[in-house]
């Protein structure tokens, strides 16, 4: 069997179904790995070792008794710490929620549990899913941000500390960290997944999603989460039809460093070589404004949500969040409504543009470049925000490296078009091969320890 750290979610599932691997063994492996690595990476806000092992024992018994719940049976998953988990702290990176232990699960957590997944713990995130960074470092280089707000969800996967994670995106909070950490991120169509039990930032933009180390694994997670919803079936990535027509928007996604631009140009060539027809997709004028509309919507909604709590406990907010509330408070109600109207117009216009250009997906770089240096910021979501505001499904898949750091290819479909997005992502992933790369954590940890960085001495018995 391949080393457990290199095992995919689906491969682990197959081994388990055939009896060659137990859920207990898998959970124990990841707990040991977290113990060794997380003092340096800090991807986890809470590790639920006892409940994960108890769940694993129960799921192994169920399997031995002849019941198989599906591909997530016995699979350890990390949950972003803004989703409620019964009996496990849910602090959302905020002093406001310190010590809070929910009594019920968020809808996505409950669905995963029903599918047999094991909640290994809660992954660290920025303050309330906004901009103030958490403690997480990028597994590819500890001096760089992992991105945010789903920082720990991406970093835990890059360091192979679990087999899949759940995150959420309000502007670029899944796609950007996934790209920065070299994993696959999925921001589904707005409304596909339930937000019940999720700490809100801006409810009309907040979107739960999945991350994994391959397109297939991320699709399996999404399929499990949508199993009881409408338009439930999403492709697991295996192409079932001719290669989709791919749109590019030259001249718009231009705030790039030259290295990322080269990687993107190479990715487009790979897509062409895989049989995808390439067409130019002229973006409608409303698309260029929807980012501003998203800012108005996000700030107004965040301020409205936090107003009462802020009045009571102002010291429990970071200066970054405090400024966001200030901005939200000065937005006139009429402007908020105009922003919603603009977003609706842009949704209509982008669908029309896809049809006019006869393209099925749009491809762009997932971010302006690789993960920025430093941990004070989680990077810029400029290439993600418009698609989140438009509610379009997006996937990022690794497209190589720039100065030793991963960069991602963003693939954008039309509403509820996850199937074609996964198919394009899967074809690219198989042809390019970047998803098989993993960070050299021994070298990264040793380098950090030589420099005496905080946390770098906390790990024990590095076996990665």
């Amino acid at each position, binding site marked *: 069997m391949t080393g457990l750290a290199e095992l995919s979610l689906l491969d682990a599932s197959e081994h388990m179904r055939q009896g060659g691997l137990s859920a207990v063994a898998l959970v124990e492996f990841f707990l040991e790995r977290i113990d060794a690595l997380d003092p340096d990476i800090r991807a986890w806000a809470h590790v639920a070792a006892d409940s994960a092992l108890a769940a694993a024992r129960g799921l192994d018994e169920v399997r031995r008794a002849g019941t198989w719940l599906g591909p997530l049976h016995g699979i350890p998953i990390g949950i972003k710490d803004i989703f409620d988990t019964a009996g496990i702290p849910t602090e959302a990176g905020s002093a406001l929620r310190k010590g809070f232990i929910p009594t019920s699960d968020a809808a996505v957590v409950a669905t995963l549990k029903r599918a047999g997944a094991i909640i290994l713990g809660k992954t660290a995130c920025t303050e309330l899913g906004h901009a103030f960074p958490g403690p997480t470092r990028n597994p590819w280089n500890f001096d760089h941000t992992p991105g945010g707000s789903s920082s720990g969800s991406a970093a835990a996967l890059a360091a192979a500390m679990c087999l899949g994670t759940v995150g959420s995106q309000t502007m670029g*909070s899944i796609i950007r960290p996934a790209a920065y950490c070299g994993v696959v991120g999925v921001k589904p169509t707005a409304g596909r997944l339930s937000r019940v039990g999720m700490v809100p930032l801006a409810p009309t933009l907040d979107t739960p999603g999945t991350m994994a180390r391959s397109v297939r694994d991320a699709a399996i997670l999404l399929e499990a989460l949508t199993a009881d919803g409408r338009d439930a079936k999403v492709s697991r990535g295996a192409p079932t039809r001719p290669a989709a027509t791919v749109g590019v928007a030259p001249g718009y996604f231009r705030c790039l460093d030259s290295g990322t631009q080269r990687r993107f140009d190479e990715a487009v060539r790979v897509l062409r070589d895989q049989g995808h027809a390439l067409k130019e997709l002229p973006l409608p004028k*409303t698309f260029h404004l929807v980012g501003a509309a998203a800012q*108005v919507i996000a700030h107004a909604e965040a301020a409205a949500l936090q107003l009462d709590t*802020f009045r009571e406990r*102002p010291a429990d907010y970071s200066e970054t969040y405090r*400024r*966001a509330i*200030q901005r939200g408070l000065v937005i006139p109600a009429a402007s908020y409504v*105009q922003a919603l109207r603009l977003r609706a117009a842009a949704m209509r216009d982008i669908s029309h543009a896809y049809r006019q250009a006869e393209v099925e997906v749009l491809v762009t770089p997932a971010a302006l470049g690789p993960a920025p240096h430093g941990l004070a910021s989680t990077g*810029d979501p400029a290439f993600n925000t418009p698609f989140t505001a438009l509610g379009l499904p997006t996937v990022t898949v690794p497209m190589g490296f720039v100065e030793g750091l991963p960069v991602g290819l963003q693939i954008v479909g039309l509403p509820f078009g996850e199937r074609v997005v996964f198919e394009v992502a899967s074809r690219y992933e198989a042809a390019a091969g970047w998803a098989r790369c993993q960070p050299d954590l021994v070298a990264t940890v040793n380098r950090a320890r030589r420099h005496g960085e905080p946390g770098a001495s906390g790990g024990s018995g590095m076996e990665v």
Partner: protein
Amino acid sequence: MSASPLAPESGHHVVAAIAASLNLPAIASEISADDLREVLGWLSAIHAHEGQPAGDQEVDPVLPTEPSV
């Protein structure tokens, strides 16, 4: 409605009045001119769209840079 309904020099008075009504005078008085200008930039962009025929607006691209969410 003008493209910039809150002029920067008068913005603090407006903000203070809004915040006072919400019992939040402290936060209002501390908003920076830079933050206010950024908000005004967003409002100007969406006001440029409002009132024009759909799909027929001549505007400059606006890419957000904050917050990083």
